[in-house]
């Protein structure tokens, strides 16, 4: 790894904080490379940082002067330098949500609208970092196991990076998500099985297909760090503080746990006070292994063999970061809520009719989880709450409406008046 000399800062005054990989279980360091498993104990590798060094060029003032992308916080991301090109990822708006807050009985509610990324989901953050690394490591193909959003992100990011894209998805994925990835130029492999089977296949092929960067497998230590940038931005947008509670969906549990890592790292470099944030997670009731363990007080996360939910993007039966998610929920005073599909749809409609934001099913689970957390007293009226909206509703529109339904009306005033009366809009 190259490290900029302290006495000779680059023109962008960037001093990388990234300090290589280390095993999350046994601590054994590993050099930066396309690896994700500890040689010594088979545990997962993760990125490490020199916070003192990162803090040298990270201040509220230097950050404020930078472009509004996720590279704003490059010192705390696993890169040697921000890439010169790529999609415009990150710095999504933190929107006040007064009408939704009133309906929920909250005083301060914010929506981190990450559906406003280039491919309409937060995954662009993870893929931007993985792609920067993949090019540096010399890979030619960007690949992934995806529940949908990641597929489109890999497709678009590969295109702008001059790489090929191959995405593996469960065959029963929403047509809109497959179409988005295909239209962006990816070769889509529809695998006969649920996500966990697709993921297992990706683990096997990452050993055999040289030249393939499987972003959420052999580049996972880099890929997963992208989610921290959501927390970095939320803290900056709140005026340099962490909220009382943050609500996010749990699929693998990576986003959910990295939000805390992000707040903690900002505190480590002195940009915010030590966070005291409660972390609320949402899972669909039909695939909620972490929610089940949380609800029953168990330390064991039992994998779900056959997810049964409309929320396909959260249908991961064996979440990689499940144990960490459980520990974070308990340790932070938060919770992991199981949201029924009907409540997910109701939450999507509530968000749409109060704030004019159409989110995908995972967003419905997230908002549904907040409602449950309020009911159970995990979140109170005076808490400042941030809800992370991870994806756009056009991707899963089929669960909400059938755009072709409804009467065709004769173009006359009489016919229209009759229709308006029937619909109750007159």
């Amino acid at each position, binding site marked *: 790894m190259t490290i900029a000399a302290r006495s000779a800062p680059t023109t962008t005054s960037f001093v990388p904080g990234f300090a290589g990989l280390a095993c999350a279980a046994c601590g054994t360091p590993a050099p930066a490379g396309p690896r994700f498993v500890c040689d010594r104990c*088979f545990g997962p590798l993760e990125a490490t940082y020199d916070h003192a060094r990162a803090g040298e060029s990270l201040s509220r003032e230097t950050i404020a002067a930078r472009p509004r992308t996720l590279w704003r916080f490059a010192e705390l991301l696993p890169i040697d330098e921000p890439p010169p090109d790529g999609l415009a990822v990150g710095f999504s708006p933190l929107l006040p949500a007064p009408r939704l807050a009133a309906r929920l009985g909250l005083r301060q509610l914010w929506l981190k609208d990450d559906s406003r990324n280039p491919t309409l989901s937060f995954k662009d953050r993870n893929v931007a970092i993985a792609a920067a690394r993949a090019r540096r490591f010399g890979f030619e193909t960007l690949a992934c196991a995806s529940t949908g959003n990641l597929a489109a992100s890999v497709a678009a990011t590969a295109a702008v990076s001059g790489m090929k894209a191959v995405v593996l998805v469960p065959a029963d994925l929403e047509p809109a998500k497959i179409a988005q990835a295909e239209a962006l130029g990816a070769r889509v492999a529809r695998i006969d099985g649920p996500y966990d089977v697709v993921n*297992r296949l990706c*683990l*096997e092929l990452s050993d055999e297909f040289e030249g393939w960067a499987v972003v959420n497998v052999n580049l996972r230590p880099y890929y997963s760090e992208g989610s921290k940038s959501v927390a970095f931005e939320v803290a900056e947008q709140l005026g340099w503080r962490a909220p009382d509670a943050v609500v996010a969906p749990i699929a693998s549990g990576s986003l959910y746990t990295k939000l805390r890592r992000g707040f903690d790292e900002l505190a480590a470099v002195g940009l915010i006070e030590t966070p005291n944030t409660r972390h609320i997670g949402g899972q669909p009731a039909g695939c909620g292994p972490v929610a089940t363990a949380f609800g029953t007080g168990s330390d064991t996360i039992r994998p779900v063999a056959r997810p049964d939910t409309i929320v396909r993007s959260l249908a991961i039966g064996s979440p990689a970061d*499940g144990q960490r998610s459980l520990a974070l929920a308990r340790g932070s005073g938060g919770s992991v809520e199981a949201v029924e599909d009907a409540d997910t749809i109701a939450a999507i409609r509530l968000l749409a009719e109060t704030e004019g934001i159409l989110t995908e099913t995972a967003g419905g689970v997230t908002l549904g989880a907040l409602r449950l957390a309020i009911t159970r007293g995990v979140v109170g009226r005076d808490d400042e709450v941030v809800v992370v909206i991870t994806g756009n509703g056009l991707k899963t529109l089929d669960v909400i409406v059938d755009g072709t339904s409804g009467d065709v009306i004769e173009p006359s005033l009489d016919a229209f008046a009759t229709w308006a009366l029937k619909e109750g809009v007159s």
Partner: protein
Amino acid sequence: MTSPVRDGGPPVIRVRIPPVLRDVVDGARQLEVEGATVGEALDALFARFPALRDRLTTDGQLSTFVNVYVNADDVRHRDGLATAVGATDTVILLPAMAGGSG
């Protein structure tokens, strides 16, 4: 299904070894061991390559960072290490990619 056996003993099954573990099995991608269950097969493997046991177990328990499959099935969806295996089966060891318990 009854499995073919050799000399009346347990069936011979294949175990696929991921790259990160091949240095302790003389570079082998796949090995053959005897065992009527996943646990027996792994025990036979560990007896041959004690360094593999050190890598994959803690206090006699298989590490939570290892996922074990019989063909395409996660053994946690079957009978765990007691899952029966036959001569046509392949046991696959893969990293769980889990973020640890902390």
